[in-house]
Each structure stands twice: as structure tokens, then as C-alpha cells.
């Protein structure tokens, strides 16, 4: 069952790359090759080091968008890669690696959100620093991106995760369903609410200057 679910997930990788990549892997599409993954399965740590190199930017980018902190994102990304390696025996090398590692990373991020809520850790603390910077001095596009990031971190993780998966990572709803275990209708509703809330936050920001 798990394999079938994963197969569907793998087949629907949008931005994550649905095509099989070159044997050695390609850093540009963030997808390691089959040969490399087979070496990892045989216990070649150096090969896994190469896999980490290829995928780390994609995974980190996703986690960074979700947690809003570079250090925490690095920790979660590292943990995701460690867990992936320790369980690589369960990974089917015929399937793309990226959706699998994404799923581990998202699950770890969700756990982190839960732990942060329990310990009342402010999420996205680094972005308060961004708030302090003068947007006018920055490049306009960068300023817009930072405003968006800031607004994104205002969202509840329940809405933030599907929104980031949908619009930042370019996944479709079926794939998100496989990853998060939430029905498509619920995901559509969450993404729609997240967009509306994000728009409202940006409008409020505009009004406040």
C-alpha cells in the first residue's frame, strides 16, 4: 500500500522532476541518478554525500520557506537526509528520490511545528530582522519577495505547508495528498484560504505603508 501511494506521488512530481535523470544525477534538477542511489543502498557513504550535494538546495529551500529560519531549516534538512539514509533500504531506486526526501522533510517540519507550539518558540524569528531593514533601499523585487516571505510566516502552518507545496514547489493536489495524507478537497480549501489570508496581509501591509 505504501509503495503504491509512493508510486503515485513519484509519478506526479511537478517541479521535483518526474523524468528519470542521468546515472550520476544532476544537480540542476536536484535529482540523483539511479546508479548513485544503488551505491547508497549498498552502503557507500561517499555516494550518499554526493546525493546530499545534489538534493540539498531543493530540500533546504522547501524547509526554509516553511520554517522561516535558515539555521532551523539547515538542521531539519540535515536530519531528513540522515533519516533517509538510515531507511534507504526501504527506498525503491526505480522511483525518483526527491519526492521521498521531500516527504521526510515535510514530516520533520510538521513535527518541529508541533514541538515549537508546545515550547512556544516563535516561528520565523529571523524575519523580524528582515522587517527592520529598509525596503526602499533594496531592490524592488527583493523587497516584494521579503514582504511575501514575511506574510507567509504569518500563516498558520496548517495553511502554510500546502500553500508552499502548491505555489513554491509547484506540486499538484494529488501529490500533496500523498505527502500530507490530507484529502484533495481539504487541501484545495486550505490553499484557497491561505491565498486569501496572504492577500489580506499584503493589503494591510500596503495600507500601513
Amino acid at each position, binding site marked *: 500500500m505504501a509503495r503504491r501511494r509512493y508510486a503515485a506521488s513519484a509519478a506526479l512530481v511537478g517541479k521535483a522532476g518526474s523524468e528519470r535523470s542521468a546515472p550520476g544525477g544532476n544537480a540542476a534538477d536536484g535529482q540523483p541518478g539511479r546508479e548513485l542511489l544503488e551505491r*547508497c*543502498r*549498498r*552502503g557507500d*557513504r561517499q555516494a*550518499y*554525500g*554526493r546525493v*546530499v*550535494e545534489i538534493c*540539498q*538546495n531543493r530540500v*533546504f*529551500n522547501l524547509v*526554509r*520557506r516553511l520554517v522561516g529560519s*535558515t539555521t532551523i*531549516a*539547515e538542521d531539519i*534538512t*540535515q*536530519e531528513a*537526509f*540522515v533519516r533517509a*539514509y*538510515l*531507511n*534507504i*533500504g*526501504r527506498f525503491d531506486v526505480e522511483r525518483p528520490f526527491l519526492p521521498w526526501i521531500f516527504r521526510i522533510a515535510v514530516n520533520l517540519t510538521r513535527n518541529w511545528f508541533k514541538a515549537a507550539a508546545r515550547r512556544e518558540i516563535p516561528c520565523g524569528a529571523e524575519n523580524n530582522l528582515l522587517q527592520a531593514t529598509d525596503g526602499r533601499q533594496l531592490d524592488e523585487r*527583493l523587497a*516584494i*519577495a521579503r514582504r*511575501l*516571505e514575511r506574510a*507567509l510566516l504569518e500563516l498558520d502552518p496548517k495553511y502554510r505547508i500546502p*500553500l*508552499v507545496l*502548491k*505555489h*513554491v514547489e*509547484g506540486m*499538484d*493536489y494529488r501529490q500533496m495528498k500523498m505527502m500530507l495524507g490530507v484529502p484533495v478537497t481539504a487541501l*484545495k480549501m486550505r*490553499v*484557497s484560504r491561505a*491565498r*486569501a489570508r*496572504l*492577500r489580506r496581509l*499584503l493589503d494591510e501591509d500596503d495600507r500601513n505603508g
Partner: protein
Amino acid sequence: MKRKWNKVIDAVLDGELTAEQGRRLLEQLGAGDEAEQRLKKMIELAGGLESLPAEKPTVSLGEGVLTTIRRRQHLGGPGKSKASVRLALVAAGALAGVAMAATVAVPLLRSRRLPVPRHIDQGIPCRARQVIGKVELDRGTQVAMLLPGQKLSVPDVIRTAENARAEIDIDRDARMLLHRQSNLRVSRLERQLRVFTLGGGRVTVEMLDGGRRSVRLLVGRDELSAEGRRGSFALLALADGRTAVAALRHEVVVGCRGRYELPAGWMLKLSSGCSLRKKLPVPEGVKLEVKEPDGGFRPGRLKITGSTDSHARLWLNGRLLDTSPDGSFTVKIEVARGDIIEIVAVDVVGNTNTVELGPSRVDGEKKASRSPARRVRTKSYRVTW
């Protein structure tokens, strides 16, 4: 009506409709400029999210990932099934349990034979936790953590995977016994463990610490030659934080008939198949000298220096102290007024020696004055006759 507009906008943003189709639908629904403006804004928002600059980690994570993996893989090799990893974890847990139970039980059993101060029993550290050294073993090695005097039994043995390398963390006070057939190779030893080599299967047994340090080795048919195979095998024992290494050939049979115990004061040295046993006198007492402070001490920071026998273990108010190989020690502590410091040295045969340090009277300090007499209130009356 607004709900319908939102549905159309969501369909456009979810990629189910094109922007043009969405606009036409909104027109058909009679939506005005407001809906169209909203659609435009939402498309901009989605575009903004999609074009967020890609973030990269500040450092390459590969090294950290591999280091963490190496640290976590004490037991299982990569790609192992969950069941085997779980089994290995259960075995490790059981082994740790046995070690911890033995940690508690052995001093208690000893205490029957030889009464030792209670605080010593309590002060024995948890050996499974204090990791300070590391031994890397080559594949196929059998490893067991033992206390001196314990037998090595087959369930205690962790057999490393054939294609994997085992890394075992050794605590500062570990008792470890390693054995395997013929080609043991310890490739790396860190910290207080000393590097040794075994050359070409030849037999060399020596105490690396040398001298008079007593190390207890257990060699028995049921233990080291458990499988009854012929050939060479090796033994590494750490007793009282000190290292001893033995590589024996089966033919040499150093008292392998039954149990062989190297008592305190004995040194065993075998070279090229020849045996040499030299008996040293068993110590009747353990030395403990405190050089500093000479006499009492004042409250505040205190430095204590002294020496004991090289094989003795030292306890300060129930805490185990590190001693240098020659038995000397230095410790700095904070003492408060009225504290008493008790230093206990215990050697391997159980001899103890205790020194107590108490506060000294500070020169010029006044003796505590007596408490003032209670004042009694009186009343005076004029008495007339």
C-alpha cells in the same frame, strides 16, 4: 455571488482554467471590475510565490549528514531492514541493561566480602553514558562490554555485519573485552586508549600500561575459546580505565584450562609463544597521600594535590576522580564553611585508605562568643515597714 467568483479565481490559480477563461466566466457571471481586480491581484500573488528566490544552505550539509550517520550507525549497516536494526537495538538495550545491572550488582556483591563505604557504591558512574573514547573495529569482530570478573557469554556478544564496520564508543571507565579469531585488527583508537598492533598472528601479550599496574584478565575455555576453534585470538581488556592487550595463540594456553585470573600484582608477559609469569607481591594496603592542603583549609577555592597507587581508584566525597598514570592527582573545588572533604582510595583487591580534610581555624578569628545572658525584665518596688 462572491462565492462563485472565488471559485472561478481558485480554479484559475489551481491551473484548472486559464486566466482568459476565468475572465470570461467572471463576465458571464456578471462580476464587475472588483472581481477582475481581485483575479489580477491573486494571479500576481501566485506569481510572486512562484518567483521567490531559491534559498541555499549557508554550508554544505554533506559532511554533517555523513558524520551524524556515522555516529548513529553503531550497530547496523546502511540499508538494513528495519527488523534487523530493531533487533540490534534491542540487543544493545539488553546489553546496556546487563552492564548497568552488573554495575550495581558487582559492588554490592563485593561489599559483602569487603565492606566499602556506602558512597562509593552510589558514586559508580553509569558506564553506558559517559562516552569519551572510540574504537573502530574491522568487520566480523565480536565485542562485548564487561565488568572485571564477568564472564563473556554468547548472547552478550555483538557480531558486526560482515560488510560493515563497527564503531564502539567506550566510556572513561569502561571494561571491555574483545575477542575474535585470528585476524583482529583495531584500526583506530582514540583518546586514552593506546594504539597497538598485532603482527602476523604472532603471539604477544603485554600490559600496555606496563609496570606494576594490575589488570584483571579472564581467560577461560568457555569464554575466549568459546567456539573451540584453534588458532590465534586476541583479547583487549580495560580495567579501571586502564588498557591491557593480549593476543594469545590457542596452543599457548595460558591457563586456559578452566578459569584463569590474573590477580592484582601479577604481570603477564608472553612473547613469541613463550610465557613468562612474574609474581609481584599482592599489595596489602593502598597508598594515599595528600600534599596540599597541608592540614586544614579555608572556605573558598581549594586545590588538592596528592598521590595514590597507580592502580587505585580515587573518590572525593563520593565522586570518582581521574588520576594520572603514576597515581598522582590534582583537583580544584569550591568549599564552603563547615565542609568536610573525604578522599578514599580503593585498589583492585579492595584495600581502602581514607583521608579526611576539615576546616582550619583562621588566624585572628575570634572564638565564637558565648550567647549573651538572657536579659530579665525587673520591676522595682519601694518596700516600707
